[in-house]
């Protein structure tokens, strides 16, 4: 599946069975399983096995599968990759990639863990200034990065800096994505109660140049499909 066709999916924690089951059965084109931010450290070991078995159980769902994992340069990331080796995963979402050396080491690990015709692409999360400043060099070094995503953590870091505006940073990331022929995804909007506000944010996001975003609640799906895909 061309990554550009998959503009959004449901974002779910990898340690909660009921949410995984609902997400795999939901009518979204993709699913993003989080093994980083939403999973407590003490549940990570068991969550890896849950995700592995879920991938096998729901392999016929034909969803675009993305998994957010710790950087493979950490022991958590390495253990996750070891367990998920050769599973059918379309995208590995990775943050804390701050230099071309980082991406090279990570790609080596991925390339030695998956068969060539089954290899996941990388969604690079721009979640700190270091990644942002080295973005072009990182992407030019990479052969697996297909997508750039903004994280709310970047906004927090920028709030401490007076000379960088978040919207300008977002535009810069979108321009780089366009230049490098990568998909650009906006950050998650956790507002699922006020859908008018969410809708306006999606409209602004699309206007800026983002091609989609992940959703965290079913109420957001229809709006995203309408705004980003025109469906």
């Amino acid at each position, binding site marked *: 599946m061309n990554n550009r066709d998959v503009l959004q999916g449901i974002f779910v924690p990898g340690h*909660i*069975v*009921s949410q995984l*089951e609902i997400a795999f059965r939901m009518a979204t084109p993709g699913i993003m399983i989080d093994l980083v931010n939403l999973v407590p450290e003490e549940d990570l070991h*068991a969550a890896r096995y849950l995700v592995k*078995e879920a991938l*096998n159980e729901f392999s016929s769902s034909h969803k675009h599968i993305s998994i957010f994992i710790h950087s493979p340069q950490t022991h958590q990331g390495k253990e996750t990759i070891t367990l998920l080796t050769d599973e059918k995963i379309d995208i590995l979402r990775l943050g804390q990639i701050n230099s071309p050396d980082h991406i090279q080491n990570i790609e080596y690990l991925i390339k030695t863990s998956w068969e060539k015709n089954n290899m996941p692409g990388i969604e690079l999360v721009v979640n700190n200034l270091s990644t942002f400043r080295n973005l072009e060099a990182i992407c030019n070094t990479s052969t697996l990065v297909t997508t750039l995503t903004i994280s709310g953590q970047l906004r927090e870091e920028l709030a401490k800096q007076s000379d960088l505006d978040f919207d300008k940073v977002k535009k810069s990331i979108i321009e780089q994505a366009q230049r490098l022929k990568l998909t650009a995804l906006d950050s998650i909007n956790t507002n699922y109660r006020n859908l008018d506000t969410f809708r306006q944010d999606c409209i602004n996001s699309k206007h800026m140049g983002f091609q989609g975003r992940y959703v965290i609640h079913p109420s957001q799906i229809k709006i995203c499909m309408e705004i980003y895909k025109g469906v």
Partner: protein
Amino acid sequence: MKIIKVGSMQSNDILIVFNDTQEKFGLENMVKVIEDQLVSEVVKTLLDKLGLPLQHLKVYFCGANEWVIKARGLAMLDLIKGK
């Protein structure tokens, strides 16, 4: 005494507790619409197939499907082996 817990009591899940001082398999079926006997047979068979020491386990079944029981069982096996 070594105690290890994997899983949860949330809906559609299973909680497996390993206690190396326990000498008999125990099961609590939290889903009353399914017969206790049936749950016990399915759960014991799956966990035994994975090589888990049933006598040291207490299981709280909350409606988990087989893939979940397998996932929780494999995670428990790893932890028992000290990985």
